[in-house]
Structures are given as structure tokens and as C-alpha cells.
């Protein structure tokens, strides 16, 4: 049945419809956030190293040499270990493991949290009760001890295994947040409207609800990545996971078991720790960026204000600032009854 043609159509441009310029994506605005941009750049740098690190490493990270425990020099930028291994090369090669575990664990955990969080929030009822109980159990079981135990269960737990273990044990928080958010989205009119239009449940979840969860998903992903990297490094550091594969934790493990600090070999200890801290900071910055993107109130930059003539103005809740009069001639200022001691 064809719709009756409209009679009110007044303007009906002839010819093919002009392709309108796609509206600017809101998502891109996220990058414009200074914090997020900084974080992304640093993260990008580490990703790059993760990819090319093994190729650009000047030495085989495991190769012994006769320069034992040497401080940084032009041959060994970050010095050497007790076996004469080049720490700089170890750092470069080790980045891959760190990033791999972090990202994979983040992906696994995020996928699980979406699966469990969103379906529990959307389905409701008994399924919800069951899935939330499951997430609560996983929330209650402390992750790090659990990871330590599970990782020590698996013989020769390599990067892949560690990533999976971390991924499978750290989804619960994300699931809880996503569930809460899904619950609130599920009641939104546009979800109901999509249903009333005749959309299938599956499509409502993937096309209507999920896009609105992107920020939360991204933020929980980044959060898990931070957690995964820290856990992985901790596992390597305390010698639970295999140390056959180089990563920053392995370097720290060796430094610690050889008591690098007591030996005065700070170069063995410092680069890995700093790299972790920088990577962690970068990821946190991205998360702040996301937070601020989701909740613009958090943008602190909005509070450093300058007038046109460069005078700083502090915005305060409850006491709206008054702009100084640019010129005195506009309206005669009535006598000041009280001197404002601003």
C-alpha cells in the first residue's frame, strides 16, 4: 500500500537529492580533550614500540655479554644486567608483552562485561538476578589473589594465559556498571520507541543501547587495561607467571631477585617502573577524557576563564562573577553604596 501523496508538499527540489554533508560526529570531540589527546599520544607511542620494539632493539634481550651490571652508557642506554644483558633491548622487546596482555585482557573482560552486564540489564527478571549474583560473586572474590592462584595453577602460564586469566576474573565491575546503565537506558523512551517501531530485541541491544554505552564501555576497557597491566607486572614481579617472555615485570623480577637496588644498579629498576607509571598515567588520562566527555561538568578547563582583555575570572557556584565594565561611558555607574572588596 503506497502512502497517499502529500498535498502540503510545497518545496520539492527537482533532481536527485543533494547529498548533505554528514553531520560532524560527536565522537571525535573526545579527542579534542587535552587530557585524552595526551593519553592517546603516549598510548600510541607505546603501541608503536610494542609493534616495532623487537626489530629496533639493538641486542637480543637474553644475550649475555661480558659487561656485567654496567650503568647506562652509549652502548647500553639503560645499562646491563648481572648477565650482561642489555636492559634497553629488554624494555623494547618487553613492551609487546605488556601491551598484548593489557589489551587482550581488556578486550576479554570488556566483552564479558558487555555480554553479562548488558544482557542482565536488558533481560531483567530471573536472568538478571542470576547474572548479577554471578557478577557479585566475582566482585566479592578479590581479583589479585584469585589471579595469583589461577595463574600459578596453569603450568607455564604465558602471556596469552595471563591475559585470559586476568580477563576472566576482572569483568565483574564493568558488568555491574553496564548493567546499571543498561537498566536506565532500557527505560528510555527511544528504546521503547524502537520497540514500538518493530525492532527486534537483538537489534535494540546492539543498535540502540550499545552505542549509548560506548563511553562507559571505553572507560571500563581502559580501566581493565590498567588493571591488567598492573596485575601482569605484579605476577611477573613476584615470580608467579612465566618469565620466559620478556616484559617489564620480568625485568623488575630479575632486578629484584638480583637485589639491583642494594647493588646500586638503579638503571635496572628505574626504566621499567617509570614506563609502567607513564603508561598507567596515559591510560588514566584517557579515562579522565572519557569521563569529562560523558559528563561535561567535570571539564575543569571550563573554569579557567579570561575576559577579552585577558583578565582572569574565577567562576564559582553560587556567586556569579560580574564582568568589569569595559568602558565607563555606557551607563553611568550609580554611586557605589558599599565598596566591593572583591
Amino acid at each position, binding site marked *: 500500500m503506497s502512502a497517499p501523496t502529500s498535498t502540503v508538499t510545497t518545496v520539492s527540489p527537482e533532481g536527485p537529492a543533494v547529498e548533505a554533508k554528514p553531520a560532524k560526529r560527536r565522537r571525535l570531540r573526545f579527542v579534542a580533550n587535552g587530557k585524552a589527546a595526551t593519553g592517546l599520544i603516549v598510548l600510541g607511542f607505546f603501541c608503536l614500540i610494542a609493534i616495532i620494539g623487537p626489530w629496533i632493539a639493538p641486542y637480543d634481550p637474553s644475550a649475555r655479554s661480558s659487561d656485567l651490571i654496567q650503568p647506562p652508557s652509549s652502548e647500553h642506554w639503560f645499562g646491563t644486567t648481572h648477565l650482561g644483558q642489555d636492559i634497553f633491548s629488554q624494555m623494547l622487546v618487553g613492551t609487546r608483552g605488556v601491551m598484548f596482555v593489557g589489551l587482550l585482557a581488556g578486550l576479554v573482560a570488556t566483552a564479558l562485561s558487555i555480554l553479562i552486564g548488558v544482557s542482565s540489564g536488558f533481560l531483567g527478571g530471573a536472568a538478571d538476578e542470576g547474572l548479577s549474583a554471578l557478577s557479585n560473586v566475582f566482585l566479592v572474590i578479590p581479583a589479585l589473589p584469585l589471579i595469583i592462584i589461577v595463574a600459578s595453577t596453569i603450568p607455564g602460564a604465558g602471556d596469552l594465559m595471563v591475559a585470559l586469566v586476568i580477563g576472566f576474573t576482572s569483568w565483574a565491575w564493568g558488568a555491574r556498571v553496564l548493567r546499571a546503565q543498561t537498566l536506565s537506558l532500557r527505560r528510555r523512551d527511544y528504546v521503547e520507541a524502537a520497540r514500538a517501531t518493530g525492532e527486534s530485541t537483538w537489534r535494540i541491544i546492539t543498535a540502540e543501547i550499545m552505542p549509548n554505552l560506548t563511553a562507559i564501555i571505553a572507560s571500563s576497557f581502559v580501566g581493565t587495561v590498567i588493571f591488567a597491566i598492573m596485575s601482569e607486572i605484579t605476577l611477573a614481579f613476584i615470580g608467579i607467571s612465566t618469565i620466559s617472555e620478556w616484559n617489564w615485570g620480568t625485568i623488575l623480577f630479575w632486578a629484584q631477585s638480583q637485589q639491583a637496588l642494594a*647493588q646500586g644498579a638503579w638503571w635496572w629498576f628505574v626504566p621499567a617502573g617509570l614506563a609502567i607509571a607513564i603508561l598507567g598515567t596515559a591510560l588514566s588520562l584517557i579515562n579522565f577524557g572519557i569521563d569529562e566527555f560523558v559528563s561535561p561538568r567535570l571539564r575543569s578547563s571550563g573554569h579557567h576563564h579570561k575576559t577579552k582583555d585577558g583578565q582572569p575570572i574565577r567562576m564559582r557556584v553560587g556567586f556569579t562573577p560580574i564582568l568589569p565594565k569595559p568602558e565607563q561611558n555606557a551607563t553611568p555607574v550609580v554611586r557605589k553604596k558599599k565598596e566591593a572588596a572583591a
Partner: protein
Amino acid sequence: ACSNGDGKTNTGAAGGATVLNVGMPNGPQTENHNPFLGSSSGASLGYRWMIFEPLVMINGIKPTEAGKPWLATEWKWEANFTKLSFTIRDGVKWSDGKPMTAEDVAYTFQLRKDNDGLNSDAIPYKTITQTGNKVDLTFERSQFVNQNKLLTVFVIPKHQWSTLKDPSQDTLKQPIGTGPYKLKSFTPQTTTLELRDSYWQELPKVKELRYTSYNDNNAQTTALANGASEWSFVFVPNVKAVYQDKDPKNHKLYFPANLGIHGLWINTTNKPFDDPALRRAMDKVINRDDIFMQGEAGYFYPKVESITGIPTPAGESFIAPEFKDKKHAVDVEGAKADLAAAGYKLEGDVLKDKTGKPVEITLTNPAGWSDYITDLEIIKDNLSTIGIKATVDKANQDAWFKAFDEGTFEAGMHWTNGGATPYDIYQNIMDGKILKPVGKGGISGNYGRFSSPEATQLLDTYANATDDATRTTALNGLQKIMVEQMPVIPTSASNVGGLYSTKNWTGWPDEQNSYAPGQPTQQNALEIVLKLKPAGSQ
């Protein structure tokens, strides 16, 4: 916890030291003074030996020397080491004032006989009889190889132990022993012992012993370096910089070897490593010096020099005349020549076996054992000089243990048992009687699945021989097999060493005066404490 401690923090001042601070890196302890239990704090920190004394004191690094009479004044082996009789010392008192008698000694043995859990050396006791101040023991088999284990048995008071419900499950909060010290206080960090009023020997100078348990090697090392710990046994990397240089005059190491070794165990069922020629060639290129210097920090496990694998000087007297002067030395060219003669081909950097396959080997050890791992890294490097491609696999500890137990490993560092003679080493490596096929676990030695009926025969002969000549012949035969077949490539000796400070106390054993091993958790520790004198008092 027990009595109150005084708040004093360290040894006495100018008047000479009164307190000795002993440390071990074993983590927080729970109050458990049961000397039988390796898990007790007494065993973990070593103070059980200050409370419970042996019948005979035997120098752990000179096991062949005659022991010193301790709670037994005399002992005699009879009937080809199937009978042992002790004469028990008179006038020894338990710390609760009761006299120690032969009855206590007999009870001590009876307890071990009756409780599998306490018979940790699996001694086949037959009869235990006590008459007057004599105790006679008989055994199912010759106990030649176990003789020191029997002589050094520590004695416990019958009047206390017979009241315990389950001696193997008792934490023995109030230990009663014959030693010069009694328990003063216990905390998870520190156990303090104080001197008894009287002792059957001259009372030691150390008035108080403080055993502190540090959580890990680092903490222990720090404590040693800053003098908080005066005696310990811990692996310290770069020991010179980290420990000795902190007080070069007083910070001392003493790491003598005993009769146990560490080496690269090879699974002899794996092709082509079933070929002794290949194993010998590997031995020729493995640099034991590097392993000692880099892997073991230049002191920890002393290098084994003899090609027989017998550590010296502890085992000096056992080495067969033909191997007396044969010291291990790296000989790459020799190894290459031997391999060529045996039909191996070195093509470029790659060694090909007789079938033309490249020779590759995986070296496995638990990740956390940094000295072993370092050793493997060195071995890997060494093996590459004759074209063997080795990979170091850092396994999970349990996986590694399982691989050794079931014979599914290719090669890896492992230790051997130790004892009064090199028999224990060889038995552990070559005994065909304990051999189990690959894939079957529960093996207690011979992880490499080395099968040599000749070796098994010789071991049996040694253990049951009635005279020294037979034993010497058997041991020489075993050495020959070891040298020719090389089922394990020895690298280092086990140590019974320690790190100590002469700042407050002198009289420690050292290379010149090796009256005892240096380790604070060994039975000989009592002897050391008895010999210590406040610094400057001589």
C-alpha cells in the same frame, strides 16, 4: 607467646656482646618448636639444635671424620652395620631439671620406629633395647650408608613426649631439651632463646640467641648488610658489593661444600642424548667457573672441580686414584673432536647427529630460581659453541617438578642427595632399583632414567659391603661410570655455608678452621655457638 621480653634492641656495648642475632629469610613463623617437623619454626630458623642435642656430633663438611661424643660417650657398629650400640652420657639434665637417661634415648628411637611420619630417613629399625646406660639397636639391613644419620639422631625427653597425643602433630609449645638454651619468647618474627643455668659442658658465652625470620632474601640481605643479622644463610647476589663491602673487616662468608652436588640432569632416554659421547662433549664445554661466578655469585654453590662430580675437599678421600688429578676444564676443541669421532657433524653453527638431525635441547627450570636459570643461560651459551641449540624454558615450579618426576623433561638443573659418602650422590643419579619408566612418577631419584645394571650392582655392593676394600672398589667403579657415561653433568657442590659478622662475635668456622659447616640451621650450629667469644675478648 611466652614470657615477656625486655626492650633491649641489640648486643651489649663495651662490656662485650651477650646476644647473637641469627636471621633466616623464611617469612613469619608460627609457634612450633617440634624438632621433628621441618615446617616448625625451630627447624626453619635452626634453633631446634640449640635445644635438642645429638648423640654424636659429626662435622657436616667432613663426614668421614670420626664424630665427637655428645650425649653418647661411646658407640659401636657391629655385624656389618646391622647393629649399633650406644653408651649414654651420665650427668646430663633436661632443661626442666630431670636427668637424661638411656631410657630417653631408647624412647627417642622407639618413637621414630613407631611413627612413619617421624622416621624421616626411613631407617629400617628392627629392635631397640636399653640396658643400664646402654642402648642397642638392630636393623633389617646394613646401615653403612646411613651411619651418620643414626649417630646424629637428637634425643627427646620421654617424660614429656610420652604424654603427647600425637607427637607428629604437636607444636610443642614448651620444648624440653638437653641443649644449653631454653626458649625465652616467641613471636612470629623473632624467637629468643636464653642460656640455661647449667649445662653438661661449659656454658657458652652467648647469653641470648635471637632468631629473626625475614620475609624474603632481600630483607635478610639488608639485615645482614646493616648488621641487624649477624649470622644467616641466604643467597646474596653480587655478595661483595651488597654484603662484604659494607664492612669488609667483619662481614665474612664461609661456604664449604658437602657431599651433595648440583648439575645438569639429562634425560638419558631422549635421542640423541642417550649417547654418552654427546653428554661427555657437553660436559667438556660447560663452563663451571662462569656458573660459579655469575650464577652462584662467586660463592654460593662451590664449583665441583673433579670430573667424577665428587665435591672437594669434603670428598677428596673418596676420589679414585685414576681421577685424582683430573680437574674439569673447558675444552671446546676436544669436545668437537670427540663428537666428530662419535659420528656427529658440525655444519656451520649446527651440530647434526648421526641421523643428520640438528641437535637441540630444552633446558627447563622454575622461573623463580634465579641462580638455576642463570646457570641455564650460561649452559645454553656454552652448548652453542659445539653447535647444540639450547632453549631455556622457565617453567612453573610444579610443572617442572612433575616433568622431572615423570621423566618428561629434556634437561635441567637439579640437585642430588647428600650424605656421609659420595654413595648418596651416585645412588641418587644412577640407581636402577628406583628407576621408573618415563611417564611414571613418584620416583625418588634417577630422574634422568639412567639405566645401568652395572651401576646398580655397584651401588648394592657398596651399601652392603662388609669391608672397606670392597667399598672402595665399588665406589671407584661408580666413579668410572660417572665419568664415562655422564648421566648428570655436575656443576656445583651443595653448600652448607653461611654469612656471618665478626663484629661482635669471633670463633666462627672458616677455611682454616673448618670444624663445622657455616649454616645456622644445621646441627653443627650448636658447636659453633659453643665456640663463639665476644669480639675483643681474646
